[in-house]
C-alpha cells in the first residue's frame, strides 16, 4: 500500500501555487499562535505563569486553575457557575431571537414594496457604522425607561437588533426568485405562510453564519452587565473575567483563574465555529458569486 497515492500531472501544484500554499500555511500558523497560547496558558501552574521570559508551551499541565475558578470563587458571594449560566442563557436566547427577527425584517425589505423602504434600509446600513460607545448612553436611557434594568431582557433586547445579520439575510433573500413566492401566493398562502414555509426554510444555510455572528456579540457582551445590571447574580461571564484581573489593584493575584476563565470564554465561540464553519464558508461563497 502506498502512503502517498501518486497524483496525476493535472493535480500537481505549480511552483507558484506551492509558494502560495507555503505562505498561507505560515500565515495560518502565525494566526493560530494566540489560540495555542491561550490553551497552554490556562493549564500552567502558578510558577509557570510568571516565568520570565514567558514560555509558550506548558510544561507541567495542571487543572488547578479551573478548580480555583470553580471552588475558590465559591467563597465569593456569587459563584462562577452563576455567571456561566447567565451567559449561556442570554446568549442562546439572543441567537434565537436575533436570527428570527432579522429574517422577519429582511423579508419585507427584500421582497415587498412600501413607502420609506429605502430610507429604512439605509438607516439600517448606517447603523452598521456607529461605534458601539456612541450609543451607550441613549441605549441606557431606553433600557431604563422600559423598566427592564436588572432583568434578562436588558441582556437580550439590545443584542437582538444586529444590522449585519439583517443585511446578510436581505442579500440572501434577494436571490430567492419572486416566482417562488408568487406561486405560493397563487396557491393561497398568506404572507406569513410564505414566510414560514418558504423564506425561513430557504434561509437555513445563512442561519449558521447569523448564529455565529450573534452568538459572538452576545457572548462577549460586557456592556449589559456593567450598565444595566445592579445585582451581581444577573451579570455574565465576560464581566466576571474582567473583574478577575483589571478590577484588582495588583496584577498578580488570580492570574491562573483569569487564564482559565479566558479559555472558558473562548471555547464556546471556538466550538460553534468548528461546527458551523463549512456552512459559513458556503454562505460567503454563495453571496459572493451570485
Amino acid at each position, binding site marked *: 500500500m502506498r502512503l502517498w497515492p501518486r497524483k496525476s500531472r493535472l493535480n500537481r501544484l505549480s511552483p507558484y501555487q506551492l509558494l502560495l500554499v507555503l505562505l498561507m500555511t505560515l500565515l495560518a500558523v502565525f494566526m493560530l499562535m494566540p489560540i495555542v497560547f491561550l490553551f497552554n496558558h490556562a493549564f500552567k501552574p502558578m510558577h509557570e505563569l510568571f516565568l520570565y521570559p514567558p514560555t509558550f508551551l506548558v510544561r507541567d499541565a495542571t487543572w488547578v486553575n479551573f478548580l480555583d475558578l470553580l471552588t475558590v470563587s465559591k467563597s465569593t458571594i456569587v459563584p462562577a457557575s452563576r455567571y456561566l449560566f447567565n451567559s449561556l442563557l442570554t446568549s442562546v436566547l439572543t441567537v434565537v431571537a436575533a436570527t428570527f427577527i432579522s429574517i422577519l425584517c429582511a423579508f419585507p425589505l427584500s421582497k415587498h414594496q412600501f413607502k420609506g423602504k429605502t430610507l429604512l434600509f439605509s438607516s439600517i446600513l448606517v447603523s452598521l457604522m456607529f461605534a458601539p460607545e456612541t450609543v451607550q448612553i441613549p441605549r441606557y436611557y431606553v433600557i431604563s425607561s422600559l423598566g427592564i434594568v436588572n432583568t434578562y431582557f436588558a441582556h437580550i433586547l439590545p443584542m437582538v437588533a444586529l444590522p449585519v445579520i439583517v443585511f446578510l439575510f436581505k442579500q440572501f433573500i434577494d436571490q430567492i*426568485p419572486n*416566482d*417562488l413566492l*408568487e*406561486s*405560493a*401566493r*397563487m*396557491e*393561497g*398562502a398568506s404572507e406569513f*405562510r410564505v414566510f414560514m*414555509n*418558504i423564506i425561513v*426554510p*430557504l434561509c437555513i444555510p445563512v442561519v449558521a453564519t447569523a448564529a455565529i455572528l450573534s452568538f459572538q456579540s452576545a457572548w462577549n457582551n460586557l456592556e449589559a452587565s456593567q450598565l444595566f445590571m445592579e445585582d451581581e447574580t444577573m451579570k455574565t461571564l465576560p464581566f466576571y473575567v474582567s473583574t478577575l484581573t483589571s478590577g484588582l489593584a495588583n496584577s498578580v493575584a488570580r492570574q491562573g483563574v483569569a487564564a482559565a476563565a479566558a479559555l472558558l470564554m473562548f471555547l464556546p465561540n471556538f466550538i460553534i465555529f468548528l461546527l458551523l464553519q463549512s456552512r459559513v464558508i458556503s454562505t460567503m461563497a454563495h453571496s459572493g458569486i451570485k
Partner: protein
Amino acid sequence: MASVRLSNLSKRYEGNGTNVVDRINLSIEDGEFMVLVGPSGCGKSTTLRMVAGLESVSDGDIYIGPTIVNDMPPKQRDISMVFQNYALYPNMSVYENMAFGMRLRKTEKHIMDSSVKQSSRVLEIEHLLERKPRQLSGGQRQRVALGRALVRQPQVFLLDEPLSNLDARLRVQMRAEIVELHRQLATTTIYVTHDQIEAMTMGTRICIMKNGKIQQVGTPEDVYTRPSNLFVAGFIGTPPINIMQGTVVELGEKGFAFTTKRFTLRLPKRYEATIRSQSLMNRNVFLGVRPEFASLPAYYGGKSDGLEIRGEVFFSELVGADRYIHVHIGADAFVFRAPAYERVPIGELVDIVLHPEALLLFHADTEERLPDERD
C-alpha cells in the same frame, strides 16, 4: 371551467407614461388553448400576470367566467400557473410541492393523497414523489410544475414560457405532452411564449402581440396564410417571409403588375378590386412571399404566369427534408425552398417561380395586408 375575457385591458407603470399593455380586447372561450406570442417586451407576460392577479390592472376589466376579477386576490381566482423557472419549492419534496395548495386549504388527507396520486400518474412522476426538486432533471421538474398546477383542477391554466428552460429535444416532447394533456382535460389555457413554433403547434388560437397591442388573433392557419400586417407575416414562420418593396403599375387589359428596378411581376386578378378601390396605382406596396411558395421552375406544376424572378445563389442551407436556397436579387436577399437533393452551385443565376395563389400584398404606409377577393 370558464372562459376568460379581457376588455380594454391596460397596464401602466408609475413614472413611465407608456402603456406596457395597451387597451387589449381578447376573449378566450371555455376550453380553448390560447397562445400569446410576441417578441420580448411586447406585454404578453404582463397580460398573463394580470390575469393571474400578480400585477394590478391599470385600466379595463378581466372577466373569468361571468365575474370581473380585477381586484380579486390570486388565490380566489381559481387559476393555477406554471412559471418559466418552474418555481418549485426547493425545501419540499415533490409530493409536498404538489400538495402545498391543498394543505393550505386544509383539504382532508385522503382527498389530497388521491389527487396527488392521480395527477402524478397522468404525468408519469409517481416514482419521484419523495424526491426533492434539486434531485430532478429539467424535464422532470417541468412535469412536477405542471402536476402542481394540475392537481387543484383550476378553472384556468396559465403557462408562462414553460418550455424555454428545456433543451430542444425535450421541448418538442413536452410540447406534444402539454397539447395531449389539454385535449384530455379541456381546461381553458393561456400559454405565453416568444417561440412562434410553439405558438403554431400548440394553440387552438394564437394572439400575436407587439408593443402592448394585439396584432392579430386567429387560428394558426389563419395567421400563417393571412397575416394581418407585415409584423405578423415576418414574425410567424421560419425561415421568415420574403418581403420586397416595389410599385404597382397598371398594364391596361392585363391588370396590374408589381415592379421594382430589377423585375416586374404580374399581380393576380384577385387584388384588382382592392387596388382600384384604394387607388394604389403608382404607389409603393410590399410584396410578401413565403419561402415554400417560391421554387425552381422544375418543381412548380402550375403556370408561372409572369411571376418569375432571377437571383444569384449565395448560400444553401440543408435542414433535413428540405433545402433553403438564399439568393441575392440586387441588394435584397430572397429565400426559397427546394428539395434536399437539389444542389445549386454558389454564384449561379437561377430562375425562381413565385406561386401566384400565395402572394401577399401589404400597404406601404400602414403595413396592413391588402385584402383580396378571398377575404
